[in-house]
């Protein structure tokens, strides 16, 4: 039989003013199983806690109910006290007779009756409480960073600088991401590559960073502290260990007219290539789709000219398994295109802008490459169609973004600022040119941002027209831009030489597939979902996985870098202990009753439920049952309510406890 101790707190007068605490103590003292009950002025004070500890020892109490304020206030306090007195902390429950009783009722009789019943309910509950040991999970102190843009680079460097190994995986042949493509950056106009490349080199040289470029995530298994990640390292056809990065192969490659994705396909590259000269690693890769050797079995020039003999046409894709304890997802963004979309797609293109078929209608990233000193035009703003310098240039904002009719309702956040930057770069490079900007409203919160935007108008002479463009069409070598100026209320028509569209920021293609591999959730646009929009913005709901950069939503560089460092800090917090300790409020499967219907697995939002085979001594499969990984389980209990045979039980909220409470009423 249990020996329950009940302690009724007066909370000064907060409780005792309305609740007759002495009477409550007297009444609950009569309940079956209660062997000690008392009241005290301030249970949470040191003397109060000492009273509790003393009673546990002297009265040999086995379970404790403290009737006081909300458990949200002092449950930890009393559980600690109970633990100090030698009882398992989970054998202590709180009855909330302050927030839920004395403070909300004025009638002393009613409040006293209610308080007695609340305490009685918790007495029945605590009888069914079990000793719950704290759960510990070992932590592998290595981390995986997915994506080698500025977010991934920053997170990787921060973690590695703390002395923990980092596996950095990048899909493209080089790290750098979109930031490496940019010319200058707002609001300071410093050259993107100048600030980016040193960080890329740091990554390459860091002893704690293992870099896999031209690689993708194949499979993620395990849970917080214990992930096994299978990485597919695609065949580069060049041995990274042998290659010196001399570049002779590229100069000799006969295939020279392949559009370079890094240059938004307006610059050309060879079949064996590095995407840009400052690439890290500086090891070329053979684009097998465009290489003569792979297409015809002839050529092989690169192999012949390669001094160290690094070119290897036989190289195969490799699967590498890495064990890590934490994962930072930094897969970044992609840009919306105005092209025609497949039928039924929720996102639409812009037929009224010619669906991307007008050659001199380009997007902002292409403009970046034109403006970049290392870009295909050497930093000159030239039209893709005929290489002429545009004298009239129109920038149109909010293409796709905030356009519900196109399927995207969010703001892409960075376009106002980069368009202002573009007008400046244009003005610096084409002194006699005129830039026009069609915009809905300029969103420039951020340090020195609004000043920067004003400068583009006031000093760099950009003409901002508040209104939207309804149509674009080619007329001779001009592009007619038909729009409205709602500030003045007139229709505007501009014959432009070039049009730059500030297209929406979208998640990377295939973002949802990666999310499924990782077991993390994503929104309807495929941006990854943080665990809490306000208070856990860099954590995923899936424990041990963190988010950095634009994969979670549109972000500019400073914001991305901040989040990357924040994610790194979260990883370091995890790595600060050898064992991960967590509250033992987790679900457990009673294997004898489980029939393996996996309804629990279907409703688990955390992927905590696994399938486990039960075999006899001879190794014959008896049945497959559910297994809840205590490291992953968040303790919501949805599985238990779903389980038809109640073969999974949430510790701390078992059916026995709940039914005991209901029956006490």
């Amino acid at each position, binding site marked *: 039989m249990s020996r329950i101790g009940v302690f009724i707190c007066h909370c000064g007068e907060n409780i005792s003013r309305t609740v007759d605490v002495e009477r409550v103590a007297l009444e609950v003292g009569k309940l079956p199983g209660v062997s000690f009950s008392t009241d005290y002025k301030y249970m949470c004070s040191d003397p109060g806690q000492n009273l509790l500890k003393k009673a546990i020892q002297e009265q040999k109490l086995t379970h404790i109910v403290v009737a006081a304020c909300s458990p949200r206030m002092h449950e930890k306090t009393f559980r600690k006290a109970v633990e100090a007195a030698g009882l398992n902390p989970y054998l202590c429950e709180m009855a909330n007779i302050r927030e839920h009783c004395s403070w909300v009722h004025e009638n002393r009789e009613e409040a006293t009756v209610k308080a007695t019943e609340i305490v009685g309910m918790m007495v029945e509950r605590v009888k069914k409480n079990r000793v719950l040991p704290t759960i510990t999970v070992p932590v592998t102190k290595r981390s995986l960073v997915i994506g080698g843009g500025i977010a991934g680079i920053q997170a990787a460097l921060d973690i590695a600088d703390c002395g923990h190994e980092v596996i950095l995986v990048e899909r493209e042949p080089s790290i750098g991401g979109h930031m490496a493509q940019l010319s200058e950056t707002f609001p300071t106009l410093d050259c993107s590559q100048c600030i980016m490349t040193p960080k890329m080199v740091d990554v390459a040289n860091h002893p704690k960073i293992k870099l896999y470029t031209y690689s993708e995530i194949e499979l993620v298994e395990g849970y917080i502290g214990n992930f096994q990640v299978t990485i597919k390292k695609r065949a580069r056809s060049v041995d990274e260990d042998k290659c010196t990065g001399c570049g002779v192969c590229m100069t000799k490659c006969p295939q020279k007219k392949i559009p370079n994705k890094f240059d938004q396909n307006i610059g050309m590259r060879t079949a064996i290539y590095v995407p840009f000269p400052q690439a890290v690693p500086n090891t070329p890769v053979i684009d097998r789709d465009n290489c003569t050797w792979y297409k015809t079995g002839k050529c092989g020039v690169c192999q012949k000219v390669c001094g160290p003999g690094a070119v290897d046409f036989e190289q195969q894709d490799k699967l590498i398994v890495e064990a890590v304890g934490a994962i930072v997802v930094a897969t970044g963004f992609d840009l919306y295109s105005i092209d025609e979309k497949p039928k039924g797609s929720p996102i639409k293109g812009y037929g009224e802008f010619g669906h991307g078929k007008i050659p001199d209608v380009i997007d902002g990233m292409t403009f970046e490459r034109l403006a970049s000193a290392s870009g295909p035009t050497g930093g000159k703003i030239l039209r893709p169609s005929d290489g002429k310098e545009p004298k009239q240039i129109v920038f149109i904002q909010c293409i796709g973004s905030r356009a519900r009719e196109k399927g995207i309702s969010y703001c892409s956040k960075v376009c106002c600022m980069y368009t202002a930057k573009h007008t400046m770069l244009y003005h610096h490079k084409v002194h006699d040119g005129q830039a026009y900007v069609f915009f809905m409203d300029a969103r420039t919160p951020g340090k020195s941002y609004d000043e920067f935007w004003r400068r583009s108008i006031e000093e760099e002479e950009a003409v901002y027209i508040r209104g939207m463009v309804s149509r674009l069409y080619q007329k001779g070598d001009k592009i007619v831009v038909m729009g409205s100026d709602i500030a003045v209320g007139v229709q505007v028509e501009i014959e432009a030489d070039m049009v730059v569209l500030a297209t929406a920021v979208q998640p990377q293609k295939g973002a949802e597939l990666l999310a499924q591999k990782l077991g993390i959730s994503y929104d309807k646009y495929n941006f990854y979902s943080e665990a809490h929009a306000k208070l856990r913005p860099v954590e995923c709901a899936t424990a041990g996985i963190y988010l950095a950069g634009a994969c979670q939503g549109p972000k500019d560089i400073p914001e991305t870098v901040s989040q990357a460092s924040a994610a790194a800090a979260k990883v370091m917090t995890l790595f600060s202990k050898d064992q991960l300790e967590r509250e033992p409020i987790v679900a457990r499967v009673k294997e004898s009753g489980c029939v*393996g219907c996996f309804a629990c697995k279907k409703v688990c939002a955390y992927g905590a439920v696994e399938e486990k085979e039960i075999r006899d001594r001879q190794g014959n499969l008896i049945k497959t049952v559910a297994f809840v990984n205590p490291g992953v389980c968040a303790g919501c209990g949805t599985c238990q309510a779903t389980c038809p*045979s109640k073969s999974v039980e949430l510790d701390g909220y078992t059916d026995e406890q709940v039914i005991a409470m209901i029956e006490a009423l």
Partner: protein
Amino acid sequence: MPLTSQPIDTSIYSAITDAIKTEAERILTEGQVTAVVGYAAARRKGSAQPIIITEATDAAKLIFTAACVNNLAVYLTKAKKEVPKSGKIGIVVKGCDLKALTGLMGESQLKREDLYLIGVPCAGVLGSTVQPATGLTTDTIAPKCTECDAHLPTGCDFVPLQTPVTPELEQKYATEIARLEALTPAERWAYWKEQFSKCIKCYACRQVCPFCFCEQCLCDRNKPQMVDTTPRPAGNTAWHIVRAMHLAGRCAGCAECERVCPMDIPLNLLNRKMAKELKELYDHEAGFEVLDKGPLNSYTDKDDQSFIK
């Protein structure tokens, strides 16, 4: 709607019987399956009972008649461990039975590749209170058959080439549900109270249900006793509510529970009512395809919440 009893044509059943015999013999002889679950004639005139055969020579025992009422899917669930577990199993299924198998596949209880499905084109079977030797008529037909939308099972490995002729019948459950829905809550309570008071907790409804595959029923657990085990009105009502809730979104209407109830409690009425609600709320109909997640294991952010303040 015929007012008087009309015979229902079951002449195709003898050709179906022949086809089942031949097919079962073939798959057993060729070793495609280790056993076939089907129906055989029983002692009482016109009656049939489930049979599990493992020898090709026993295939001659298989029959199909209007007395072949059982949903044999129950023999493939974990609650029934006696059926050989190794190898592929052949099973004779009516359209309604097939829906149960489909559901079981979605709930990881069966794998399609472990089954050889012998589908039966079915014009209907007899109701539960009818003597087995009685002919099939619009009066003697099982109530579930009046609402059948699967006379011809689809997706089977073998279906005899017969087309059942089925008259348009008054949909017995739909009519009864509508009648009960039109009553006041107190009147409905009185109706069910009377029905449930007859219950003796023999659990035939549970034991025969393909979806009651739990090795240990929630109602057989006693820590805590979630549902009173005693066959008193209170415990009976709780049991039938829990049962209907557990079957919601899963039951495809084989109506075995109702057929076997020795106290004639219209259990399938509860199941059909739940099915109707799931159709209206989530456009879900059980048993047509193998679903990764059932309607109560999934959600959308637009689900109805008009009942929530």
